[in-house]
């Protein structure tokens, strides 16, 4: 009996390792081919590179490429991602809190409007959105297309329904006593929210921020419409699209570009790995 259990465990471990290696295989392919010259990659895409120093030469080519503008694109992506995920979380938590705590017909209607956003696919609003941003520019003189604030504003709008929905569910389970006690102590409503409610919401903040960070950092279609491909302001996916479009079949450089595009978010993942895995598991039960 005990030996049978041991065999089962060994088999499970073996299967896990095999599947793990299979999952990692594409990364392995990217790394070895990012260190090859264009000739080497054509002759043998699965051999190890002749000399790893080629990797640095390739990185230098991508770094200085005028269509990728790596440093500036990473900066643009980072600003858009960080500002968007903070504003989505804070604004949605604020909205969800007043919607839960003020039980009126208006609250119910507004909540339903938010929820309707969960079933509206991006494709159905993307063309009119660009047109509306143009109208806003012509009417109010606020430039929304090809700007940071236009991009972030769009992410708040698209990110709000899911975040409001998740915060709403969580806030409902927080007992009211704490807030009532603070009110008696003379706290104002905003003080109650920022000093008492926000800290309680921390686990949901983490889950929502992880999901939004992965979405926004990698998003392609929305920025391609709002910022445009090959424009001054470009995110990493737009830069990759512009580069791969102009360098058809230069696989050695495309692999290097892909590696450099994935590096920042992979570093972010390894730094926060513990919280991310925990946040994903606990948040997904809700």
């Amino acid at each position: 009996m005990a030996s049978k259990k041991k065999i089962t465990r060994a088999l499970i471990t073996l299967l896990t390792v095999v599947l793990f290696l299979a999952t990692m295989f594409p990364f392995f392919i990217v790394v070895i081919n990012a260190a090859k010259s264009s000739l080497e990659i054509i002759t043998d895409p699965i051999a190890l590179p002749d000399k790893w120093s080629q990797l640095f030469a390739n990185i230098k080519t991508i770094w200085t490429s005028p269509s990728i503008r790596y440093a500036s694109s990473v900066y643009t992506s980072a600003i858009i991602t960080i500002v968007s995920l903070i504003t989505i979380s804070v604004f949605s938590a604020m909205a969800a809190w007043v919607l839960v705590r003020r039980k009126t017909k208006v609250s119910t209607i507004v909540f339903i409007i938010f929820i309707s956003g969960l079933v509206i696919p991006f494709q159905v609003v993307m063309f009119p959105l660009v047109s509306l941003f143009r109208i806003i520019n012509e009417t109010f003189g606020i430039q929304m297309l090809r700007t940071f604030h236009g991009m972030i504003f769009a992410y708040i709008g698209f990110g709000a329904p899911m975040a409001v929905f998740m915060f709403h569910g969580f806030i409902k389970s927080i007992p009211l006593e704490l807030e009532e006690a603070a009110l008696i102590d003379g706290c104002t409503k905003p003080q109650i929210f920022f000093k008492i409610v926000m800290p309680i919401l921390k686990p949901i903040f983490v889950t929502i921020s992880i999901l939004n960070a992965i979405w926004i950092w990698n998003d392609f279609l929305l920025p391609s419409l709002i910022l445009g491909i090959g424009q001054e302001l470009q995110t990493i996916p737009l830069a990759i699209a512009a580069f791969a479009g102009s360098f058809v079949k230069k696989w050695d450089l495309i692999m290097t570009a892909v590696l450099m595009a994935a590096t920042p978010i992979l570093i972010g993942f390894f730094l926060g790995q513990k919280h991310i895995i925990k946040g994903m598991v606990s948040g997904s039960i809700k």
Partner: protein
Amino acid sequence: MKKQTKDHLVFWLFLAPALISFVVVVIIPFFMGLYYSMTDWTAVADSTPVWVGLENYKSMFSDFAFKYSFIRTFLFSVLSVISINLVALTFAFLVTREIRFKNFYRAGFFIPNLIGGLVLGYIWQFIFKSVVPSIGALLGIDFIENLLLLADPNLTLFGLIFAFTWQYAGYIMMIYVAALLNVPQELLEASEIDGANFWQKLISITIPMIAQAFTITSFLTLVSSFKQYDIIVALTNGGPTDLYQGQVVNSSELLAMHIYNVAFKYNNMAEGQARAIIFFLVLSVVSIAQVYYNKKKEVEM
């Protein structure tokens, strides 16, 4: 009285940032889109759209490319849902068993989810075009050496499904892991004492206990495969071409991409918008039906 107006003010001030951006970015464009879909709207600036009624909808239903794209999207979505959930469930079972370095494997299976569709599409394009034939040559297996998944219109979808499963299964795994950790261990141990084997335990205890997770995961996978765009742009860009009812069509141009191409490549914004409206209706009906069906099943289990 004064307190009440102040509360009112706080209510709207707290609501305003999220509500205004949501209404401007989603709700207003949604209704604009409904209107535009019934006009001759084009991307050309300064032209006022003229009302054409249901013309765009009529021409859509007689368009073979749209029909073809619809069938393909449906096929892709069904196969993706099955493939992603099977792989995710397998991952989840493995990483919730008594093995060492559980968290390490969980992280490993999740990592592809960090790679965006566009970047991932280029990686897999390279793998399918260069790496797979090289591996075939190395092993001396002609079938693998000549397997050009992306060049064959009948096989392209499988290439897309493969790449999409690689990306998404790790995320879905997390949901299953959460559900599996909630299955009471006592129940499984008790059934083991009663002599239940692995399959009996799986079918009569584990699967019913994680029924709620199935509702979530099949909803998520269905919606995201139906809307898939990024991976396809980088992996196949709609190609290769195929013949459908004697007409040339793009074999991997699924609906999301079809809508985009009709609007921008053929500069027919109004028709693209009409197709997007139908896309929205179909997606809503299918996903609501799916959740309804699963919820019913959940209760039965």
